[in-house]
């Protein structure tokens, strides 16, 4: 179905005309000042109620009677027309089973649960004439949103980042097939460069990532919903993940989890599929010419549950449960249905029915391949009986063809399904480690009386450790984001991924020193070292090799020092442990994995959540706010002037190379102390042309912004603050040129 989609069947005549013939765009905003002011207010009042917009409109009219601003309804309409962004609403099952799209488009009842598609009362009252859908989901087709990105000189230049960087990388690589020395973007990954080499991706193509995740809008489960977005790889990593450059994809209301996710993604994917074959017409404002852009769907990002649905795999507890579909054989307990990716065969498993295979060599783990996937899938769909299907599904780890198999321009399945740096090594692994260290019920084995040497985070030790962690918080600079709360009190109640990241991989080696027994502590440090490398913005080839070695060793050691071939402890080896073995290889394939992780989705969900106004009907409101974000993103792309980025703060001093001195500043000469004078004397005596420099007095500055966009403060200003809770931003890492 996805394969056969055409643009003509998706848009009405007027929309189609606009999609096929994007007009050259004058880069001045609309000439009508009252229209411009209306739009500016519409954009600036994002996240405020309609009343705020109407109030500003009334106030303007009171002072300037000549200026008649558009009503909220009309400005929203203008925003839609000018941006060209289109919104589709499709009916869905009231219980969330499926969307009435594709093969289900003509049904009047859900084939799964039998719920009626339309309001029954309306149907009855009107003798079946009035069909009011009981529930709808929203799709924002990416085509028009991408067109908007090309319509202004500046944004079009941003879109050219990918091709510019590609040419740099190809020059650097020359003729050789050697891997690059530095990985600092998705474009450095082998997967992308191979596609360029074989001509699959060229200058004007649009390279997309699809990211989907469940979101809880409020504290109640009733507000669960599913959101997906498109991320443009064409834009540089410094701007790619900003809200303004994210393309909303669709909103699927809850609270019931979508059972047939494919049917909800169908409208968006069919649209992309059509653009992959027919091409997207764009007006390139940078080179001032028309072009045709073929879409390429590069990666699919999702949390584990959604990913299993999208890739058609059996899920993480299956015998081949790795989400990358690498095919590693798991082992199950004697009477257990859940499989664990343990490399070492537990004692007494020599005659186990399904898990008797010998130890697996960590240096020859299987890697996911398109050929293997194809063979397995063919095998599955050619099953003749239910029993045969079940047996083959069990052996292959996949249960059905993926909806993405219908896409023509996508990384070959299953390599288009990415791992996730946020869930697996951060959230899931943290959960496992604390299950073990705190001896939480999630990890307890059969024999409740065995003493675990690593289970030290209990009682007073755990309490003292928690207090230590909360004391450390105030020493973390503000640029570190959310500081870890006291884990002893908060770890099981909504500890956030960001907190875990700072706690385990940032503070970890310091706060667990002298707490964990030596063997377990040094083992943990090796993990920290590797994960820190994997999270770097830019990773050198040597560092990646180091990380790979450490991670493999860690996984093997984990089975030795925690599980000890004890069949009762097989459940320690969760998929998150196995996922570590993929991290370095995946980095080589896709560049730094943070750039293709669910962190972006997490932030988008947070942002959209903050815009919500009407908790009584959160889904409708979410769809409306997301629509407004889509319109605004397109308008700002077309006229960047609509949203001025902030200039340098008043009274700052630009030093070049992205260093900027910031106030506060001394208003009169500061007389240096003798030891300070001494330091200046020593420094300037060896400094060129510094004979005439005053070494007695200075004007002090309080803060400095550096290229990492962090702001370093100073002892001078920080010690003046009296709050105990204030964070510490005055410690820096310094590099002086080698002598």
């Amino acid at each position: 179905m996805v394969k056969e989609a055409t643009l003509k069947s998706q848009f009405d005549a007027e929309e189609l005309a606009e999609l096929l013939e994007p007009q050259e765009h004058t880069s001045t905003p609309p000439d009508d000042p009252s229209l411009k002011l209306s739009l500016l207010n519409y954009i600036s009042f994002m996240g405020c109620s309609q009343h705020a917009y109407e109030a500003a409109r009334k106030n303007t009219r009171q002072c300037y009677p000549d200026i008649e601003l558009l009503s909220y309804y009309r400005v929203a309409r203008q925003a839609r027309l000018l941006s060209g962004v289109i919104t589709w609403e499709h009916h869905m099952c009231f219980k969330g089973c499926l969307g009435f799209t594709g093969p289900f488009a003509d049904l009047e009842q859900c084939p799964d649960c039998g719920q009626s598609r339309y309001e029954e009362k309306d149907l009855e009252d009107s003798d079946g004439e009035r069909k009011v859908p009981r529930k709808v989901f929203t799709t924002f087709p990416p085509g028009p949103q991408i067109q908007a990105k090309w319509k202004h000189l500046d944004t079009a230049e941003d879109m050219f980042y990918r091709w510019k960087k590609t040419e740099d990388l190809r020059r650097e690589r020359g003729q050789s097939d050697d891997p690059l020395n530095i990985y600092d973007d998705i474009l450095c990954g082998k997967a992308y460069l191979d596609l360029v080499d074989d001509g699959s991706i060229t200058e004007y193509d649009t390279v997309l990532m699809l990211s989907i995740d469940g979101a809880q809008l409020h504290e109640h489960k009733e507000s669960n919903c599913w959101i997906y977005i498109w991320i443009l790889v064409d834009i540089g990593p410094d701007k790619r993940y900003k809200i303004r450059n994210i393309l909303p994809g669709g909103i699927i209301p809850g609270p019931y989890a979508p059972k047939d996710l494919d049917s909800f993604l169908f409208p968006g994917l069919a649209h992309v599929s059509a653009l992959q074959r027919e091409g997207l017409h764009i007006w390139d404002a940078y080179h001032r010419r028309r072009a045709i852009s073929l879409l390429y769907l590069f990666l699919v990002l999702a949390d584990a549950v959604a990913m299993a649905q999208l890739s058609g795999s059996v899920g993480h507890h299956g015998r081949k449960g790795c989400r990358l579909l690498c095919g590693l054989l798991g082992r199950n307990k004697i009477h257990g249905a859940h499989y664990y990716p343990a490399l070492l065969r537990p004692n007494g498993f020599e005659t186990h029915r399904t898990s008797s295979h010998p130890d697996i060599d960590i240096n020859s783990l299987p890697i996911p391949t398109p050929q293997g996937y194809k063979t397995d899938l063919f095998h599955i769909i050619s099953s003749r009986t239910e029993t045969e299907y079940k047996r083959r599904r069990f052996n292959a780890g996949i249960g059905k063809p993926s909806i993405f198999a219908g896409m023509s321009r996508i990384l070959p399945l299953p390599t288009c399904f990415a791992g996730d740096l946020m869930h697996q090594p951060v959230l899931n692994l943290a959960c496992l480690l604390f299950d073990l260290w705190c001896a939480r019920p999630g990890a307890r084995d059969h024999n409740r009386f065995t003493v675990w040497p690593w289970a030290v985070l209990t009682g007073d030790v755990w309490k003292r450790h928690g207090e230590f962690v909360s004391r450390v918080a105030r020493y973390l600079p503000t640029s570190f984001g959310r500081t870890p709360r006291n884990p002893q009190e908060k770890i099981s109640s909504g500890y956030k991924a960001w907190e875990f990241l700072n706690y385990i991989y940032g503070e970890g080696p310091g706060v667990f020193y002298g707490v964990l027994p030596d063997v377990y502590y040094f083992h943990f440090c090796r993990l920290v070292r590797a994960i820190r490398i994997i999270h770097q913005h830019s990773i050198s080839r040597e560092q990646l090799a180091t990380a790979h070695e450490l991670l493999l060793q860690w996984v093997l050691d984990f089975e030795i020092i925690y599980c000890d071939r004890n069949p009762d402890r097989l459940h320690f080896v969760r998929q998150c442990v196995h996922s570590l073995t993929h991290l370095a290889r995946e980095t080589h394939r896709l560049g730094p994995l943070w750039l293709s992780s669910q962190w972006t989705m997490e932030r988008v969900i947070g942002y959209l959540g903050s815009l919500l106004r009407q908790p009584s009907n959160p889904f409708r409101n979410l769809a409306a706010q997301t629509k407004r974000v889509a319109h605004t993103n397109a308008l700002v792309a077309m006229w960047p002037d609509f949203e001025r980025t902030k200039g340098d703060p008043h009274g700052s001093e630009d030093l070049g190379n992205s260093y900027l001195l910031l106030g506060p500043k001394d208003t009169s000469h500061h007389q240096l102390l003798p030891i300070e004078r001494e330091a200046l004397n020593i420094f300037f005596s060896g400094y060129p042309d510094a004979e005439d420099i005053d070494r007695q007095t200075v004007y002090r500055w309080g803060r400095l912004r550096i290229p990492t966009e962090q702001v370093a403060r100073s002892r001078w200003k920080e010690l003046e603050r009296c709050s105990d809770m204030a964070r510490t931003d005055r410690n820096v890492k310094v590099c002086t040129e080698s002598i």
Partner: protein
Amino acid sequence: MSRYAPSQSNLVWHVYVLNGSQISRHGVVSFAEVHFYFIKVFGDGPRAFALISLYSPPNEHILRSTSDTLVVCRHQHERELTVIDVKSILSVIAMAPFPFLIDGHGNQYFMIEKMGLGVIKADALEDNE
């Protein structure tokens, strides 16, 4: 001045400027507390400096035994007061009190760097919330 070479401790890094092009600097890494910043005017224009106090070099034994993850330094207060060009500042880090005596000395701090520095920058839009 106390220093240690990054090549030995594996603390090699690469520095980025905002347009994405890359300068890699090789030199000596140290950790410091900034007292204040100041400008001096030279023939070719103003240049900015920082008065800092250096932390001691990291304890080699702890560093090595923890796979280069635990960087513990002593705070030396005014003893290591020195001046640097502000452009040699690479990043803002945390130095948190380390509640153990090392070789009989207290006043120890351990260093924490920001994870994934520079990848996902604060969104100007979200700052306003």
